[in-house]
């Protein structure tokens, strides 16, 4: 039980996917026009994340290691399709306003990241709690950004008017506003020296790629590339050296034979 609580704390506060790990930036900026949308997106992602963690954790001993990523993608894509159909049937308004970002949950790095980093190594119960924690952390981050944007852009929070019509700044509800609000929030994080991927103080993620989308410059891939390249060169050199050695040996044998003949 203690471990489950620890997973919740870890997901919501310590490794908050939005503020600390900076994962899943696309839905974070795109769907936070109003607090309701942001929360809806967060909860939808949470639902997918909990079930994907649960299923992947149950199947972790069956899925062969080499095809695990395609297997994860199929599982996540099926869950996303189910969630999309449910939303279409029961909350059509949310489905309408989130639009293409519901199918795009498939490529949200949080989901594959948690599958790879946690669910593939731990039991189903802990994995499900990890999913709940991470999902709620994501929901919290999205709702927080969305509240700022809705308040500044439309003067309302969850539809309740707080700022009179004349004082609202429409740009915060539009695309550029998303960048500005996130910039302000990350600057505040820097100011108070809070751990975050943006100032290098965030916890190192254990994903193969580092899991730090905002600082990724393909460097992991590049390093991989370099390693492979040096390994290939090394192998080529070794092969060449072996060949040379073989030739030299043959030559000495041949000369020895010749010497014998001469004698």
């Amino acid at each position, binding site marked *: 039980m203690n471990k489950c609580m620890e997973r919740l704390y870890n997901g919501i506060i310590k490794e908050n996917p939005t503020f600390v790990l900076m994962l899943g930036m696309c839905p974070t900026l795109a769907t936070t026009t109003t607090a309701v949308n942001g929360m809806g997106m967060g909860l939808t992602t949470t639902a997918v994340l909990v079930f994907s963690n649960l299923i992947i954790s149950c199947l972790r001993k069956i899925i062969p290691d080499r095809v695990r990523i395609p297997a994860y993608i*199929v599982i996540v*894509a099926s869950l996303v399709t189910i969630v999309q159909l449910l939303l279409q049937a029961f909350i059509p308004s949310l489905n309408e306003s989130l639009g293409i970002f519901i199918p795009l949950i498939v490529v949200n790095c949080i989901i594959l990241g948690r599958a790879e980093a946690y669910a593939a190594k731990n039991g189903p119960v802990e994995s499900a709690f990890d999913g709940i924690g991470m999902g709620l952390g994501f929901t919290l981050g999205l709702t927080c950004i969305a509240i700022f944007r809705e308040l500044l852009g439309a003067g309302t929070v969850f539809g309740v008017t707080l700022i009179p019509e004349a004082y609202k700044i429409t740009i915060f509800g539009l695309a550029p506003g998303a960048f500005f609000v996130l*910039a*302000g929030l990350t600057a505040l994080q820097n100011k108070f020296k809070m751990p975050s991927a943006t100032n290098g103080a965030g916890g190192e993620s254990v994903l193969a790629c580092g899991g730090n989308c905002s600082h990724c410059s393909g460097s992991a891939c590049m390093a991989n590339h370099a390693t492979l390249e040096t390994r290939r060169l090394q192998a080529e050199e070794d092969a060449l050296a072996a060949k040379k050695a073989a030739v030299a040996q043959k030559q000495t044998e041949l000369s020895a034979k010749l010497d014998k003949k001469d004698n």
Partner: protein
Amino acid sequence: MKELILVIVGAALVNNIILSQFQGLCPFLGVSKKTDTAAGMGGAVIFVITLASFVTSIIYKFVLVPLDVTYLQTIAFILVIAALVQFVEMFLKKSMPSLYQALGVFLPLITTNCAVLGAALTNVQKEYNILFSVFNGLGTAIGFTLAIVLLASIRESIEDNDIPVNFKGSPIVLITSGLMAIAFMGFAGLI
């Protein structure tokens, strides 16, 4: 012909994939430190999105619609894209090593780039036929490349500027992208 040009302009400038649709932000913020890496990423994205738009629209038209399983589009598209990226990587490695040198590093990153899946899904949503899908994909990718190369060159030139301490690093990049988004909003009346 005129409609095709309009589709390209619309996808590249008016509905810019990054600055107004918010898809593919991770490479946009991550791979934009140097102009040449940004251009390499852009090249790889143009290549993959155009090809993926073509293949996914064929699959949609000739497999999913006849079998009446269009609700499987998300699963089908992501698998097709993942396979396609692997295939492109192998093909480039074997037959065009020079192009592979330039783009190869970025190819694995592209599978989980939401711009690719996003472009494929948009084609279906807007009910484009195969030709229009390819051109929409091309336009989308051109818009991506334009935005990422522009951001990279801005980032290179503000590197030594006197930025407030707390805004150093990603906040200033986000603000730059916000200003670029405002500039791109000016294209809204173009079509």
